[in-house]
């Protein structure tokens, strides 16, 4: 069974090792948690869990957990 948006958002928070809460529509860059290292951590975490290897270009286009969810899990 595929992840819900809320579960995926929690997964992102854990992948980033973020101490701050993250909501599905938050702008990750504005939250200060979407730096190059966090993106690298996300690439590895998404690959482990979903067997999808994201590119830096794809991550650049996705600003929120919701947009990442659409990209990785689908609607």
């Amino acid at each position, binding site marked *: 069974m595929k992840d819900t948006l809320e579960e995926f958002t929690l997964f992102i928070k854990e992948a980033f*090792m973020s101490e701050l809460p993250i909501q599905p529509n938050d702008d990750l860059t504005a939250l200060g948690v979407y730096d*190059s*290292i966090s993106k*690298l951590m996300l*690439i*590895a975490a998404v*690959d*482990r869990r979903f067997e999808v290897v994201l590119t830096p270009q794809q991550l650049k286009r996705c600003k929120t957990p919701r947009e990442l969810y659409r990209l990785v899990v689908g609607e």
Partner: protein
Amino acid sequence: MRDKLVNASLRGVATCVPGKVVTLDELYSGYNDAESVKQLKKAAKLTPDLGGRHVVNSTTTAMDLANRAASHLLETLRWDPLSIDVIITSTVEPDALVPSAGYNSHKLLGLSSNCMVIDTTLTCGAFVTALWFAAGLLTTGTFKRALILFGDALSTELEPKDLLSRAMFCDAGSAIAMEHTPNRTPISFICGVDVSGLDTMTLLGRGYRQNQESPYLSIDGLKLGAFFYGKIPALLDNLACFSNTPIGEVDYLFLHQPNQFMRSALLSKIGIPEQKAPSTQYGNCGGSTIPAIICDNWSSRERTPLSIYICGFGAGYSWGALHMMVDELITLPVIIEKDL
């Protein structure tokens, strides 16, 4: 590029680091602004057990470290300097352009006038490529002994405010001894280059092209990391087929470690246990990272022969992996040179 070379073996590895240690507290001392704090958090994510970093003093160069490692190695192996047929150096910080690093090392080590010099600037991906050069020269028997030197003092290339990179890199020099040895199991090499990554690690301001580029090392960690996260597991799969040695059957994988996070992520994807792929406490030492890992972990009590993979990667993009059987390998624990 795929190649199998016979009649060459790895005989010795030595690594030197300078005595001066900069602790994380010292590194961040005086940097209390938001950007510095952010970099500190990033560094902690990348290298959770980050300790101090060894850096050269103002009078020591990268090749001082490499030459010292070579002296220790020749003495330990009891190799007469006059028996060396070729010296290969890799550094981006030669003492001078002319005479080149290799010629200076040739003089300092007292090598023979028959010993040839090859200078390169291969950076982090250097290890496997340099071993391929050497093995190619040793395979026919015209050259009997090769010495390979790596010198990197990356602390001198980093912008003072680039605290993240300063926390990642350690200055080090290393020396590798290889020898013509008939009837050896072939060493299998796979090396490659993809210049789409040419802008991901640059030191433009130190070249001769007149421009306004920064004199500091510039690194796009995301692009580099994402590229090699995809590339290295596939490279090792190809090596397994080419060498007919599955990764599960090797005794050790010596893998370049840009930082601990990348190392762990790659090992997890490759599916090899951490104890088979040891690391070094000295962090990213450029071309000397793999020698430092070997010196930190190899023990003379190791049963031999051992089946090993070695994999290096870095600027370019460039990468190289090899499989070889190793026996009678002499290594020294990483040497901390108090005077350098």
